[in-house]
């Protein structure tokens, strides 16, 4: 942890600020949310890493997808993700967002979340323990340092494909595209 190094703070304040102040949008998609209350309260104390939960996506910059994603939840996830201000990071928490997990043959569960929104990292396990959230956070620090956590840039560049996938899963979307989609206007 290089939180105390003033040299780095002067060199890249934005990047360091992004690293050491993750505000997690408090969004429960599935059973994984049960691991969040112990993480943010006294026992594991996420606040010492600068991780705090916030109630609104406008203030957040980290999105934890906790648990399985049903088709209905995907709609809310996409809207929440698109409301978050730009450098933003997504972490899939648990096995289910990765490949469906134990719901691999369910008819209304999204199997691969990264087809619909960009995901910067995964935490495997069913359930992952609270410690693994901290490991994920430290990995995310390394990724931001090396410039690898660029999910939000990827979303902007490949928005057309993401939108197409979203429309395939959800039917017609009732909100306008976040970024201009070339083909639609022609």
């Amino acid at each position, binding site marked *: 942890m290089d939180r105390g190094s003033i040299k780095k703070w002067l060199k890249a304040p*934005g990047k360091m*600020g*992004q690293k050491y102040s993750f505000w997690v949008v408090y969004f429960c998609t599935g059973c994984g949310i049960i691991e969040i209350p112990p993480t943010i309260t006294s026992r594991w104390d996420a606040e010492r890493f600068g991780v705090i939960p916030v109630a609104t996506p*406008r*203030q957040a910059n980290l999105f934890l997808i906790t648990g399985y994603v049903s088709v209905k939840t995907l709609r809310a996830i996409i809207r929440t993700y698109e409301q978050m201000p730009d450098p933003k990071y997504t972490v899939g928490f648990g096995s289910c967002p990765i490949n469906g997990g134990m719901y691999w043959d369910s008819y209304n569960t999204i199997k691969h979340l990264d087809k619909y929104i960009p995901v910067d990292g995964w935490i495997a396990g069913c359930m992952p323990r609270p410690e693994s959230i901290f490991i994920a956070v430290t990995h995310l620090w390394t990724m931001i340092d090396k410039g690898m956590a660029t999910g939000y840039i990827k979303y902007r560049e490949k928005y057309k494909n993401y939108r197409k996938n979203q429309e395939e899963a959800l039917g017609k979307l009732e909100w306008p595209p976040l970024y201009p989609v070339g083909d639609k206007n022609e």
Partner: protein
Amino acid sequence: MIIKVISIIVLPLIALIIGFFFLGLSRKVIARIHRRYGPPISQPLIDVIKLINQESISHGKLFDMGVILSLAGSVILVLFIPFGGIAPLATSGDLLVIIYLMLLAPLGVALSGGEAANPNVSIGISRKMMLALGYEVPFLFSLLAVMTWYKTTSLVEVVKAQQSFLWAIFYLPLPAVAYFMILPAMLGIRPFDIVSAPQEIASGTAVEYGGRYLALTTIQHAFHIFIDIALFVNLFLGGGNLLTFFVKMLVVFLLGLFINAVFPRLRIDQAIKYCWKWPAILALVGLIIARII
């Protein structure tokens, strides 16, 4: 003249540093009371640096102007409050000016939130205005008690009179207690964090703020903490030089913080009932005593 200009520049900076120190300290102290390790004291500064470097989403002209209005109101208010002998804009009637300027901050937030047109924001604003209505009554009574006792409306005169003899808290214990009882409501901390209740109305007035707007709001909050506590120290604890003033502010803030760390949140009707009952009665009795003696 030059000293005045320098102090006009320096005083908001000092206020900002002290405000951010208090914000960080509050998170650390609350963490220790909860038996956690807690974030570093510089965490609010890290948050603000992050927020400045984030994308900011605007909802219109008034949305921008309201945030700036509330910040400007707080910065001007800082200049009227003497801090350890520095009082750049002190005049003969500055206590009255302070009463008026204190309403600028909630007004700016209300204007800005109205533009955002979010239902949570409207509930937050209505709660903020009602809470302001609640704590203004005992606040005015305590200020009136101090003004009546020292027969002046100048804050600098009040501080001078206390420094030559005993502090006002020994003559006017009841208004001092009343002011301390409404201090959490003025700061918007735990028993009275009805306005920014994250669990009920998704952080109330700050729902639509993100990026630079939230950074400005945090800076305004730091100024606000400085103003409310510095006013208490000036009115009742006799001011002091730079160091003793800071120590007195620290003591008052920590006492308020201990209340914040252990009490749950009140409802808005309970909060107004509380504000208009015990602190108002105490301050009114103090005012009558100050008038008679």
